[in-house]
């Protein structure tokens, strides 16, 4: 009897240590490894773009894309799942913040950066460029999503263009509320006339009970050769 109790105690202690190790791994280790991998992706993408090498054609949205001159959305040009095709910069998240956008929002894709909901608009296109990201773990690209305020810049870089979006609103919704990533946010079925960007992350932090959602509108676009937009230089 005493031996059984002491064995049980040792088992419970072991289970406790393993659980603590899991928390350390999930919160810190995945952050380190994914964060490093994502930074490497950003460097290789921007190096390739700046070298002028022929990038994936999918990364190039219609050159006329802007709020004033709507381009026709072409979902057929979506990159293959898992491919990194854009880089997101958010001055509010810090001057060094740069995270790759990969096609798809599956578990594996979200470890490699910000996920682009398949079938939603591409950068600069009229419609809704819908992005999902981790708020904790795996590089936590959307860790500070609740700090975004109306007017904050969200800059999306592709192989050929810079797009500056300005935060318009934020909301907390149920994980089932897919209308937030509709072509016109919260108005499923309506035809879009503007280029939106929507970010989704878990809420509250460390929980998957709800989603924190931020909507932004395209303000301006310029060629990559023109250099980073003023919205980035004004990073405060």
């Amino acid at each position, binding site marked *: 009897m005493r031996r059984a109790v002491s064995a049980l105690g*040792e088992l419970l202690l072991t289970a406790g240590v393993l659980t603590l190790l899991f928390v350390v791994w999930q919160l810190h280790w995945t952050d380190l490894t994914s964060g490093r991998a994502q930074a490497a992706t950003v460097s290789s993408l921007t190096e390739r773009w700046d070298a002028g090498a022929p990038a994936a054609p999918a990364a190039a949205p219609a050159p006329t894309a802007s709020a004033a001159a709507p381009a026709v959305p072409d979902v057929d040009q979506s990159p293959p799942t898992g491919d990194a095709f854009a880089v997101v910069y958010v001055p509010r998240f810090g001057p060094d913040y740069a995270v790759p956008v990969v096609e798809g929002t599956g578990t594996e894709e979200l470890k490699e950066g910000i996920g682009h909901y398949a079938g939603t608009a591409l950068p600069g296109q009229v419609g809704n460029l819908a992005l999902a990201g981790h708020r904790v773990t795996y590089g936590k690209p959307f860790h500070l999503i609740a700090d975004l305020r109306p007017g904050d810049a969200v800059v999306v870089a592709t192989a050929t263009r810079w797009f500056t979006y300005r935060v318009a609103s934020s909301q907390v919704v149920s994980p089932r509320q897919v209308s937030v990533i509709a072509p016109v946010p919260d108005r499923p079925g309506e035809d879009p006339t503007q280029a939106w960007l929507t970010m989704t992350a878990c809420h509250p932090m460390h929980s998957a009970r709800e989603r924190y959602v931020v909507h932004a509108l395209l303000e301006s676009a310029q060629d990559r050769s023109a250099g980073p937009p003023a919205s980035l230089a004004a990073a405060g």
Partner: protein
Amino acid sequence: MYAWWWRVLPGPWWVRLLISLLAAAGLLLLCFTVVFPALADHLAINDGTVEGN
């Protein structure tokens, strides 16, 4: 459990300690590379996507 482990290990105390540390390191590596990643995908405590149905 640990008393049994200590009894079955051969050699003097420092050899047993060395073997124990190596076993713990191996277990940690297995957890970090195989067990925890598989477990995390099932827990999905950090899912940030919106999905229908």
